[in-house]
């Protein structure tokens, strides 16, 4: 009898505990619906950021890239964690900002790799000797993310050196990666290899609209405002498939836009960020409608990670939680509904880098879109 009561009481205590936690969480969420979860950032730092400040892509052989460093910086400044921000920025500066002729960031760094040498046999500089840059080409989204984070940091912590570093990156990015094409200013994904006589290979997800808009405001007289406007036009025109979605990679030739023949014709891991970027910059943008229309009937169980825009078939993998967060955000914006940060699921300790990054970025976007200032 006593054992029976003990079991009942134990279950009751556990239930009460769970209920208490849930209730506490509910109350907290109710009181601060747009507050970023501290736990998300702690998990992110623990799982993906080294003590030296390297953001590790755990899903891809633990490489690091400029985009990941950029995500880390944007998130750190959103959490107002200056120590983490400085750690990530210092590592980025010392190990990726090593191109000899400009201030752009080498896009990829691999652990265990040997430093690249120039024709005189001099290795590229770097302070983290556990690996090295394996390709000095830049990725313009990484450069933009880092510059954006630096501009935000200069405002949050009122430190000129961040602003200066951002301007240096952006000046060289404008010089090397912006090109006039068919009356538009286009953003090349990298300095080398995306521009041929036949046309330009473009990645729509590299148009990080909130970043471009903030950069244009912070650096008046520069072409970033036009890049942003022309990027929206690119996305409007570059829609394919049954659902009129943006492909991961586009090819601009003449005045035509095609799905790039060099890559899978998917709306997938790259282009999933396009609606995030659009909504973050302008939550009532009409460009969100096709994405919301596509995701609405599929969310949550049936949302695929990729869609083939040539035959409208779904890819074999389900969407990552971060991608689902983007879908929820997009649907809320397109339907003129509201969404709170706390309504989105917390980052789990097993979530991969890319998903966790998207998840936290979406929450930052939700906070900036919906929280009353």
């Amino acid at each position, binding site marked *: 009898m006593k054992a029976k009561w003990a079991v009942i009481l134990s279950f009751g205590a556990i239930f009460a505990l769970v209920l208490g936690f849930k209730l506490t969480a509910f109350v907290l969420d109710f009181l601060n619906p747009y507050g970023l979860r501290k736990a998300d950032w702690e998990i992110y730092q623990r799982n993906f950021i080294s003590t030296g400040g390297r953001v590790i*892509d755990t899903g891809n052989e633990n490489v690091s*890239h*400029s*985009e990941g460093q950029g995500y880390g910086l944007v998130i750190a400044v959103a959490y107002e964690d200056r120590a983490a921000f400085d750690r990530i920025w210092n590592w980025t500066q010392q190990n990726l900002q090593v191109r*000899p002729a400009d201030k752009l960031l080498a*896009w*990829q760094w691999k652990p265990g790799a040997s430093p*690249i040498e120039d024709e005189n046999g001099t290795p*590229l500089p770097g302070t983290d000797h556990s690996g090295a840059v394996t*390709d*000095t*080409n830049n*990725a313009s*989204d*990484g450069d933009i993310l880092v510059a954006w984070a630096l501009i935000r940091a200069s405002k949050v912590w009122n430190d000129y050196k961040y*602003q*200066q570093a*951002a*301007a240096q990156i*952006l*000046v*060289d990015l*404008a010089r*090397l990666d*912006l090109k006039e094409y068919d009356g538009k*200013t286009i953003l*090349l994904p*990298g*300095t*080398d*290899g*995306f521009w041929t006589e036949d046309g330009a290979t473009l990645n729509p997800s590299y148009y990080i609209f909130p970043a471009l808009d903030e950069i244009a405001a912070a*650096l*008046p*007289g*520069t072409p970033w405002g036009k890049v942003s406007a022309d990027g929206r036009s690119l996305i409007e025109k570059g829609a394919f498939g049954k659902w009129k979605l943006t492909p991961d990679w586009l090819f601009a030739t003449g005045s035509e836009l095609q799905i790039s023949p060099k890559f899978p014709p*998917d709306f997938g*891991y*790259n282009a999933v*960020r396009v609606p995030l970027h659009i909504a973050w910059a302008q939550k009532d943008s009409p460009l969100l409608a096709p994405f919301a229309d596509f995701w609405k009937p599929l*969310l949550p169980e049936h949302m695929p990670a990729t869609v083939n825009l040539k035959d409208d078939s779904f890819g074999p*993998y*389900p969407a*990552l*939680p971060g991608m*689902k967060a983007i879908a*929820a955000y997009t649907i*809320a914006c397109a339907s*003129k*509904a*509201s969404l*709170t940060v706390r*309504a989105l*699921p917390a980052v*789990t300790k*097993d979530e*991969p880098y*890319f998903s966790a990054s998207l998840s936290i970025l979406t929450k930052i976007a939700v906070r900036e879109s*919906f929280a*009353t200032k």
Partner: protein
Amino acid sequence: MKDMMRHLHLPQSLLLALAILASSIAPISAQQQAVAAPSVAPAALALPTPGASVFQRTAPAGAARLPLPERTTPREETMRLPIRKLIALDSPLMLRNASSIYTIFVPVSARMKFKSCSLNLDFTNSIALLTERSVLRVVVNDVIVAQYRLDRNRPFNSVEMGIPLELLKTGFNRLQFIVAQHYTNQCEDPGAPELFTEINPDTSYLSAVAEWRDVPQRLSYLRWWVDEKLWNPYQFNVCFPGSSQMTDLQLAWGGIVTQGVALALNYQPFRVMTANALRAGMDNIVIGTMTELSGYLTATEIGSVNGSFLAIKALPGDPAHCMIIISGRDEREVSQTALAFGLVNYPLPDSQYAIVDQLTLPQEPAYIRNAPLQMPGIYSFRQLGYKQQTIRGWNAGGYSVPIYMPGDISKDDGANAELRLHFTYGAAFRDDSVFNVFVNGQFQKAIRLRDLNGSMHSDHRLYLPMISFQPGRNVVDLTPVMVPLVTGKCQMIQEENLVFTLYDDSVFVFPRALRKCRLPSLGLFSQTAFPYSGSPDGAETALFVAGRDMETVTAAWTLLGKMSQISGALLHRLEVGFKPPGRNIRKNLLVVGARDQIPEDIVARAPVSPLQVGKMRYLVSVSPKPERLATSPIEEFMEKIRGTPSEKAEPEPPKTAEMTMAADMIDDTVAVQFESPTAVGYPVTIVTAGSAANLLSGMNALQDRSVWDNLAGDLAVWNSRPDSLAVAKVGPDFIYKSTSVVTRVGTNMQQSPWLFAPILIILILLIALGVRTVLRRRGEKLGAEENESDA
């Protein structure tokens, strides 16, 4: 609104979130496994790398993103420079006597590479000249470039001559017109009046085809790159990149750099523009914080901005013009850079960039070009810029000593300035030889040079009345008139003994001058920029710019630039803004704007309303008004009783009571000065026009000497047409900074002497009545005492 939306849509978002939550709990491990498997890497990992080796990076051609001007300037330019611009206003270019030289200086800018140059000369010679012996030589830098016979039968001449380019050097080139003129072969009077040739300076001109040189990208070149020696007005654009609406701070920055340019140009006119992007065909001064200018800088330059940053670069697509970068990390540093640029004597390094260190301005206004004299004071000629020299020969000219007087010296001053001259002269002068002293062209005193053996005077004292001096620039001319002892027809005339040396230790002793300035006076404003330059840094002046449009702003900057050229100082502590200053501000107020932009309360005390387009009347011409009306001794006596008319700060233009016409003032610019309605004793000067475009056009025309130098009275109206200036005196006077009741009553009495007489009579009557009453009481008291004593 956002709150409302949140409440309205909460259930929907909750459902959405719960759905995501549900989906994210169960299949998460499966997803992890699935994600690890695909060969398609997410996001940036999909970047293709073209296999180019690291150090063989090829930048795409034509990717530079600097906002370029739409067109580039043609490098070659045809220019014309009237001789009138190289000589004093309204003075003729007359060559008299048997031998005469007129020298002018032709500017050649280092920015221009001349490809050809010629001189077109219109001259008229006397019809009494002996053609065979009368010649006009044109000499450039001591080399004869042309000779013309002065033909009595062809007195009107128009000739064109080429000037060899190798004779022209960068800087000021001496161009001399030298005549030998004779009317007879024997026993000639060399000063005969029929010996003359006149060159018409208005129709004679220099013309040149020149090419713009590339800008040397060195800051040390900047001082002479903003060049007064350009033949056309220096044009520049003040660029605030990306700025949609000009702020007060940008207005102030633009004002300071415009003044810097104006000071560098000395008295030459300029044309300033402003935009939020570069303009082709002119120098651009780009101002803003480092981030605002990032589109104009390289990453390396951005990295080097660690303070107030000044740089010079070639204008993109136009190496003949430059882009001057005035920047810094924040607005304070930008302000400091602008100030360093504005101070013409700030040392600039021989490099493309400079970080302006802590800029401390001297307490004393040592950086003023035309610093007025401090009075009382003793000044040697050396201090005043005179260089000791000996004059030789007959009609060999004289000495000139420029003096800058404070703007508020009073015409009421009865004091004298003392001149202590140290000079020596040669022997055997005829006894009508003299040493004449002129102030501003007006004869003052003479010293007779009567010692046949020559003499040295070490402390010869002369007294010059202070009323001979005007506010601002004065010129004291000291001219020895040396006549040979032996002259006469067919006599050998000895000139070698005609020598005169004026030593530079001669001194001026200025008394404690009466500092009382009667305003309004646009004449005083044009001579010295007083009272706006009363404090050399502009600390006592406020500038209200009534519109934010390009034309109004640049019109205001143009006026500031002109004022700094006149005062020779940078008005960097000027209070400047787009909002009217507070009502209680005790400053000299300048207002610039189109008529409909100026608030009505500012013009409350204006003697005429410049806001009423087409309604304002002004004087075009009237016959002179007699200064005194008295014609008989009785009337003169009565006039003495009335009092003499109050002395004026400047010759007073006729009153508008006699105005003769109303003008259509749509195209006109109006300047009116009057006492501030809110700050007693301080002036308000409004410069306005019917539209902002007309205002700018008028302000550019104001820079012309024929307009600026002739401003007078308290009302001036002009437009871009030549000789359009009309001036008038329409409002009451006031004493600058005079706020005391006594002074103001005194001023009013002086202005209205008729008021003074009855008040004085009443006062005398009252006093007389009082004295009479006292005396009567005293008498009564004494009478009573006497009666008592008698009793």
